[in-house]
């Protein structure tokens, strides 16, 4: 591969007591691509996401991230202020539960503007214009700008979280089951929105999901996990249409066909 990777992980291992959560996991992510991590519950998907994003320290192995200036940083060796800045600007994290990320006592506009203000934006008019712009991007009416998130529906909360995350134009977004807990029609709309935004902005993303259909729709590449081990990895269509590993075969065959 001639294009340098955006995020690389080698030999990630982590145990929770006697449970192996990650067993020598290697991950590569190139700029502008979406990588899906699929597997059943308890297979280590979310743990892997937390380790990749620097939130959890692995027992062994390392994660490297290529910053905007082309330098590679070892994520777990970064000083806390630098990692926090990275999380607030160049990276984004979309949680399954938007309430974990949003401030429920702050208006939608304030929620979207927080990352801008943390990055040093000090012009109220500009921040508000940006908030309006991003509200439109995630298909929320402009007159909801000063409303509190608690008046929003589940799907709108998730879209607000996405707007709040993307406002600083991150190059890499971590998504943990972004469509979990939403009903099917809302899910479809959200998936469509994520796909459009990610493609338009050229964002790279690591997407954790247990839903094969979500992975097929959004991701170019896929990594299948079982008990902390990446058992199969490759292009999404290739892996899902011609699964090699017995566990992947099981996962694909367990999807309901209509």
């Amino acid at each position, binding site marked *: 591969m001639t294009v340098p990777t955006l995020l690389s992980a080698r030999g990630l291992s982590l145990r929770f007591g006697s449970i192996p959560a990650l067993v020598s996991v290697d991950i590569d992510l190139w700029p502008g691509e979406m990588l899906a991590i699929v597997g059943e519950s308890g297979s280590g998907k979310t743990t892997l996401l937390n380790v990749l994003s620097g939130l959890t320290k692995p027992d062994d192995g390392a994660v490297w991230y290529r910053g905007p200036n082309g330098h590679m940083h070892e994520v777990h060796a970064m000083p*806390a202020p630098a990692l926090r800045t990275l999380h*607030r600007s160049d990276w984004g994290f979309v949680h399954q539960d938007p309430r974990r990320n949003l*401030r429920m006592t702050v208006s939608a506009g304030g929620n979207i503007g*927080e990352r801008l203000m*943390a990055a040093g934006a000090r012009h*109220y008019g500009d921040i*508000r214009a940006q908030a309006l712009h991003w509200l439109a991007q995630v298909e929320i009416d402009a007159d909801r700008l000063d409303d509190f998130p608690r008046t929003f529906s589940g799907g709108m909360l998730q879209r607000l979280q996405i707007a709040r995350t993307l406002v600083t134009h991150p190059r890499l977004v971590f998504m943990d089951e972004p469509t979990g807990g939403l009903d099917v029609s809302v899910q479809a709309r959200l998936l469509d929105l994520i796909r459009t935004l990610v493609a338009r902005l050229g964002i790279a993303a690591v997407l954790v999901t247990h839903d094969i259909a979500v992975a097929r729709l959004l991701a170019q590449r896929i990594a299948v996990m079982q008990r902390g081990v990446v058992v199969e990895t490759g292009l999404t269509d290739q892996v899902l249409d011609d699964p090699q590993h017995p566990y992947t075969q099981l996962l694909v065959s367990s999807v309901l066909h209509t």
Partner: protein
Amino acid sequence: MKGYNFAYLDEQTKRMIRRALLKAVAIPGHQVPFGSREMPLPYGWGTGGIQVTASILGPDDVLKVIDQGADDTTNAVSIRRFFARTAGVATTTHTAEATVIQTRHRIPETPLREDQIIVYQVPQPEPLFRLEPSRVETRRMHALADYGLMHVKLYEDIARHGQISISYDYPVLVNGRYLMSPSPIPAFDNPKMDGMAALQLFGAGREKRIYAIPPWTQVRSLDFDDHPFRAINAPGNCGLCGASDSYLDEVVTDDKGGRLFVCSDTDHCAERRAAGHIGAEGLRDAVE
């Protein structure tokens, strides 16, 4: 006073507080924990300020105590008398004569000098406490100078009220680094903190924190480029001395809607009247 050490506190406690003060002066705006003592007055009445004053007071000092700008309210009178009895120091109501000024909720109108120290009584030293409930998290935010959240609060004010609606305890950034609560002084007094000649010490007794601003330090009130900080004051002049540039209290004078604006700084007002300045109400009194 017999049976008490000079200025009430024992020498070991004063040393402990002075160590905290030295650290606070070395890191302007940073909250330094200290072992706050039980004082013979309730929390919220100035236990932090009184401990700081007790540990910096010397026999030659002249003490002034103000409460909401006034020298003659219960809190000011009691604390002044407390130190007059336990330390035997001279007391005054004149800002210019004092070497140590303990204050609650105001900064005197008369500019302070390099040979003066002002001690603030602080109820809540943490400027982020209403925004972030976890002290672990606010300490981390201070350590990383991560103050976006404070601006979110200002943003919300403008979105909701059309302007920043904080009228007292207006957050400031000290020396371009630490976010600090100026104690509940009116926003009107914030500009006086910037580059002040006197040493400013802050004591929070219940919260067990001390912080400080050394002389000639930059103190900036947070704002937006297009919504700059404004020092809010009542519309009008002082009814007694006619001052237009001092912070005014509104006094209800009867039950028919009569009201009067007077200087909150009683010493400033009295000095102006002694110098011959007369306000609208003062003139009427003279005629009658």
